[in-house]
């Protein structure tokens, strides 16, 4: 066998192997998605989106309270995690010297890897215990704590991609460091920062564990930020482990809804990012 044939063969084998691996990697996703579509679609109807749950035994009803509750929790999480996270990212990228940023960055990396149940217990200790009961606020706080390190890291990374010559263009006009950061650097990275926030929200939207000890659950509408609130992941969990067929079907449908929303946010923000990267390369 001559060398060229040998090389071609190695090439063909290797590319098939890697293609196969890639396929195996996406199979679970496709499988999950397919299963959810098969099992969940039948329960997706108008009542599902607009009605409250009905007592066991009755058929029909919906999960409107969980949908609104999830939105409420994510909004609270964003209110807490986004301003702090963006400010932290700006500090790390633009103002950090050596010592403090190193510690903060390390802490953020660690925080991302902390199991979400631990974050739930933490929020329980600092919010639920002092107040004395579960609440939407506590749940939003727990999700916000999860959001924080992701937003910090992401913001810092996007700010770092802002080219030096753009900063220098502002400095050369006599603008100070702070002015340059806020008027030129942050706007230049804005799209990336926002996309990162959306991706982070999509990630925590499916978290159940931090809500067990914090937002808990609620079979009715949430009646205030200091009251327990239902959410999609919590509802999926409760309905999923229940003994009722109707609840099982609704859990499948809720899971389909959640995954669908997360996928849409993910794909859209990645598209925006990719387009932006491409346009910057041309410019």
């Amino acid at each position, binding site marked *: 066998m001559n060398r060229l044939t040998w090389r071609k063969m190695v090439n063909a084998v290797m590319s098939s192997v890697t293609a196969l691996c890639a396929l195996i990697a996406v199979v679970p996703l496709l499988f999950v998605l397919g299963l959810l579509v098969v099992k969940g679609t039948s329960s997706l109807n108008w009542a599902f989106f607009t009605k409250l749950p009905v007592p066991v035994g009755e058929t029909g009803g919906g999960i409107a309270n969980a949908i609104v509750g999830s939105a409420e929790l994510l909004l609270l999480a964003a209110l807490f995690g986004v301003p702090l996270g963006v400010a932290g990212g700006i500090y790390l990228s633009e103002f950090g010297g050596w010592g403090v940023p190193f510690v903060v960055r390390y802490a953020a990396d660690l925080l991302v890897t902390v199991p979400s149940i631990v974050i739930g217990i933490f929020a329980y200790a600092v919010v639920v215990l002092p107040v004395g009961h579960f609440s939407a606020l506590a749940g939003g706080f727990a999700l916000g704590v999860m959001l924080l390190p992701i937003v910090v890291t992401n913001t810092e990374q996007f700010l770092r991609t802002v080219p030096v010559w753009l900063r*220098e263009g502002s400095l050369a006009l*006599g*603008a100070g460091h702070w002015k340059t950061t806020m008027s*030129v650097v942050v706007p230049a990275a804005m799209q990336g920062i926002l996309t990162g926030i959306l991706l982070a929200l999509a990630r925590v939207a499916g978290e159940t564990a931090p809500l067990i000890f914090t937002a808990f659950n609620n079979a009715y509408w949430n009646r205030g930020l200091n009251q327990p609130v239902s959410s999609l992941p919590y509802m999926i969990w409760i309905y999923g482990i229940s003994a009722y067929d109707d609840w099982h079907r609704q859990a499948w449908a809720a899971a389909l809804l959640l995954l669908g929303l997360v996928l849409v946010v993910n794909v859209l923000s990645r598209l925006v990012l990719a387009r932006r990267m491409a346009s910057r390369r041309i*410019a």
Partner: protein
Amino acid sequence: MSATDAARLDVTQNLNPEKAQETAAVPEAGRNQPAVKIKARNVDFFYGPKQVLQGISADIRERRITALIGPSGCGKTTFLRTINRMYETVKNARADGELLLDSESIFDLALPHLRRRVGMVFQKPNPFPKSIFDNVAYGPRVHGLANGARLAELVEQSLRGAALWEEVKDSLHKSAFSLSGGQQQRLSIARALAIDPEVLLLDEPCSALDPISTAKIEELLFAIENRCTLVIVTHNMAQAARVADYTGFFLTGKLVEFNDTKTIFTNPSRKETEDYITGRFG
């Protein structure tokens, strides 16, 4: 005629006759030179332990165009960035020696003040991610020079000064990224002009541009010259010959020769200058 003479003749043809008259028509001794705007004496520059400029001394004349030429890496950019103290963004960078702007040491001036008086245009066009209008208005806003109708007027003047007004007057609120490379570079010039600098430093402003855009920029430099002292780094010898009243030749961190452009191109006193100009190296 030797090859060297032929090459020299070639560049000499680019010498701008009007420019030549401004400087060389006056007899050598009694020459009525414009005032010194920037005076450098024994300027040394270091990036950490590495010395990049050695004993630079030069008088840069007011409202004239001075070109800096020399091979890559010889310190031209570094010298420009010393004049507006842009080098201070680099860690461990340090400048020594005397560098005066109108007889005041640039090292004593507050940075916003120095950079208001000494503007800079970079090698690569660097519009901000803002509208064309907001790009030009950026400097005046930073320094609180104008707002409202007065600001709009200032923006128009600056865009006219950079020969860009006619092309963008109907799209002032479009993103600056929608402009072509040549337009973006003129926008950078308009942005710099908007704070009415006394000196404008240009670091190879045409190196990324096509010949037509280059010609436009050269033309507008002549127009700006009346209000502003210009220092331009260029790799293009013909460009230096066309636009500059004075030319300085840098080689490995030293200012080998500094004189009026005609002398540099027709009768350089140093062998290295002659070798570079005639294309024997560099």
